[in-house]
């Protein structure tokens, strides 16, 4: 049986600039796959490319891009739009601006069902009430009649999640769903996502830059850097034995209770994420990497470095622990 979402060698370019340079990952049913990386590394572009929502001028290529066993590479806009919102749904980073200010919450929620299932308005409203309750919104009847500007950021993101669930999707792509929210609200939203996944058997592709979130919710992690997945492993394995220098750098930036002593300096990675020029080859991280050598400019091997654990690095066993 095939995975829910399979991506192989996905590439996205804007004009001459490569934003995603051949990434591969899979999301199984009922699994949360986290895509981590700094801003600008191509995480969001990856998720938009999967949904077929790239901005004008964006070009997508892939050796394989399949959803529930169907090859969606050649789907035109019309067929994709039938899939989106119905079987695959997405929530975004910006809850404040992602809802249309001109329509009520109810109108925006019900139109998904009406579009994909042709559900009559009354039933669609019932479903909306049910889901608003499910995502922990009190007085859902009242909220349905309200406009987005009357809701707080946390409420809006809950509405977005409820809206994404209207048609019982199989895959949910969440692009930094908690970044714009308060820490307390963040925790609630994450707990909600985890619950929903357990109850509904959702496959979730969660995009984030926050390793704390990864540690809490992910089954599997892919670390992205400069348009490539540099390391991919089950969550526990990745945190226990990171192999790629970049992953290690990332992890050292996060204080872990018990491991880091009070007063120890936190790690940091010198430099910033580079813009990848056309025709670039080799490791994108080599200018910031303390293990870099001449061979890093050549083609890189993707190696199995542990159980279901891959890294993209010339170091055979990864970074010495």
């Amino acid at each position, binding site marked *: 049986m095939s995975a829910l979402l399979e991506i192989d060698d996905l590439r996205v370019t*804007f*004009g001459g*600039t490569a*934003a995603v340079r051949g990434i591969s990952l899979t999301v199984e049913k009922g699994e949360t796959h986290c895509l981590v990386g700094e801003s*600008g590394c191509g995480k969001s*572009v990856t998720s938009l490319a999967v949904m077929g929502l790239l901005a004008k001028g*964006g070009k997508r290529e892939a050796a394989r891009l399949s959803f529930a066993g169907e090859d969606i590479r050649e789907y035109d806009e019309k067929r994709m739009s039938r899939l989106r919102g119905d079987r695959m749904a997405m929530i975004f980073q910006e809850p404040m601006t992602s809802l249309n200010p001109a329509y009520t919450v109810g109108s925006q929620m019900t139109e998904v069902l009406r579009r994909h299932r042709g559900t009559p308005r009354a039933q669609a409203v019932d479903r909306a009430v049910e889901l608003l309750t499910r995502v922990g919104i009190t007085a859902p009847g009242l909220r349905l009649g309200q406009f987005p500007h009357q809701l707080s950021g946390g409420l809006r993101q809950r509405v977005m999640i409820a809206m994404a669930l209207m048609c019982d999707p199989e895959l949910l792509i969440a692009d930094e769903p908690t970044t714009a929210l308060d820490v307390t609200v963040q925790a609630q939203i994450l707990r909600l996502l985890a619950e929903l996944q357990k109850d509904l058997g959702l496959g979730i592709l969660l995009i984030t830059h926050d390793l704390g979130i990864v540690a809490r919710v992910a089954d599997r992690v892919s670390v992205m850097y400069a348009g490539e997945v540099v390391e991919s492993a089950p969550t526990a394995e990745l945190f226990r034995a990171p192999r790629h220098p970049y992953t290690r750098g990332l992890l050292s930036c996060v204080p872990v209770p018990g491991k880091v002593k009070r007063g120890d300096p936190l790690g940091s990675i010198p430099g910033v994420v580079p813009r990848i020029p056309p025709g670039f080859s080799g490791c994108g991280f080599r200018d910031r990497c303390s293990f870099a050598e001449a061979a890093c400019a050549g083609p890189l091997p993707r190696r199995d470095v542990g159980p279901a654990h891959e890294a993209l690095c010339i170091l055979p066993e990864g970074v010495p622990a």
Partner: protein
Amino acid sequence: MSTLLQPAGASDRRRIWLNAGAILGAGIVGFITFVAIFAPLLAPYDPFAFDLGRRVIPPFWMEGGSPLNILGTDQLGRDYLSRLIYGARVSMIIGVATIITSGIIGTFLGVMGGFYGGKIDDAVVFAITARLSIPVVLVALAVAGFSGGASFTMVILVLGLLLWDRFAVVARSTTMQIRNLDYVAAARCAGCSPMTVLLKEVLPNIATHLAVVATLEMALAILLEAALSFLGLGVPPPAPSWGLMISEAKEYMFFSPWIIMIPGIALFVLVLGVNLLGDALRDMLGTDLSR
């Protein structure tokens, strides 16, 4: 990420297109300015000399045309090309004089409002609102009509006194923005008098924005002058205003359409040129002044 999403090439193409518009606009305006300045040298005949024996001769390429009068003659036998050439003077002088008048009024009001704020600003905003509610063409016609016939200066004065609103709007908002900038605040703190700050810091910085408004208003003034003259309450005959030429030749238009086409096209091309120039200027500055 937003820079990544900008498709490369589109902005270049846009720039080329803008340049084409700018060159076309500058070419048209430059050419007509040249014609206006050197009208006496370029015009083949005296634009006022009539010859009732040679009336309504069509342009030379039409049947019955004559190579003596390239664009034909009007209803009084005056050479149409010569009148057209002198007509450029009327349009250009009125256009420029109007924006100077209205520019001074509007900029003064706008800068005062934007710089001092408070009650002064309220008054300026009120003046703009009141001005916008006055129907321009009607009032211009009424003033010209009631003061016993129109004249060249009357047209300039009336239009100048009526078309300052957009200058004021833009001067006000840009002054407000600039006033709050650090270096202007610094100059104020350093004890420069408000006058010095206005003249040295504010005016030079809003000048480019006002230049854009000036082109758009000039196009409007040229069109309004033509309309007023067409209605017989603008530039008085026998001056060769393009609007007046259309008005005077109106009776002949059903038999000889060219007689209104020639000055009409001249007017259209000039206004188009001025607008193209204004648009190019606006895009170069990257400001959106569409109110």
